[in-house]
């Protein structure tokens, strides 16, 4: 496969092209400098204490009865709309079945 070894010339040309095109897209080396990290403002769940919101009060109490569900556990989100599952026999599936016994 030696013909796939890029020549010095082609590498240098590609890199030069990439650099000049990138220079047009990247505003400057200070592209990130204009942005300050805004501490304390993070998408819910993407900071370490986001979950604190759910921990006050005894709100959690109500779900305790949910524990030993007699209901059949069926995925009922968007998976149904997306067209269900892969054909049986895919590696992951079989493996999961074996592990689950």
């Amino acid at each position: 496969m030696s013909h796939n070894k890029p020549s010095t010339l082609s590498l240098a040309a590609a890199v030069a092209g990439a650099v000049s095109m990138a220079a047009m897209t990247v505003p400057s080396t200070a592209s990130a400098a204009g942005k300050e990290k805004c501490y304390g403002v993070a998408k819910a769940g993407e900071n370490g204490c986001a979950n604190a919101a759910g921990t006050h009060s005894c709100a959690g109490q109500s779900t305790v009865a949910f524990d030993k569900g007699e209901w059949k556990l069926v995925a009922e989100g968007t998976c149904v709309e997306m067209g269900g599952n892969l054909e049986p026999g895919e590696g992951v599936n079989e493996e999961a079945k074996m592990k689950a016994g």
Partner: protein
Amino acid sequence: MLHDLQKSFADVALTNSVEALLPHVATPRGAIERRLGVYHANTLNSLIDVLSAAYPVIQRIVGDRFFQALAKDFIKTHPPQQPTLFRYGDALPDFISSFAPANDLPYLPDVARLEWTRVEAYFAADSAALNPERLAEVPAEQIADIKFSVSPTLRLLESDVPIFTLWHVNQPDQDRVPEIDFSHPESGFVLRPAHTVMQRVVPMETLIWLRALTSGETLGTATELALTHENTFDLQNTLRQHLVDGTFTELYL
């Protein structure tokens, strides 16, 4: 002594078993279980919230009830091992593989892996992108020998299923979920250039190129590997994209 007491309280919080704690509490038994149950419920629910925050796409795919049951089983078998909740849930993708009710959704573990990868990228160290002009300074005959160090937030992913598409169509702003061809493999990467986690689907040869550079191969070798996989590999455009994205942080000769 104190350790035993704390351990028995942890049992209450995680599994709602009050037996070990009973000798330490003066209140009548019925009231104890009800009161201590509050700790259990709150612990469980805050951990479910952590998982829900890390895996919103999984939750949307399977629905709230399924997700709750999945999370509870996971928490029972994988209680937190460290005091930082933002790291909690890394084992969920593997757990989903062994979770029997999810057998019908074999793509689920890989979608979960993508979600966790995004969490990792979010919390990885910041880094400054390589200034493209550094490349312009390298003499032509040394270009092949360039090695890059890559952003600590970069994660490469390869899956037999369309994980990036599945992730995308399950964002909150997507109200119509299309039919998906689950047999279509996807590879790509996750990166956090500044403050926002981004992801891109890339062809296999680009993944090979990135994988080689990430593991310390030279630009020459990485490009040769990519070209061997697919001889239309476009170094100029691929490199341009990664210079713009900020994939690389430094170059060495």
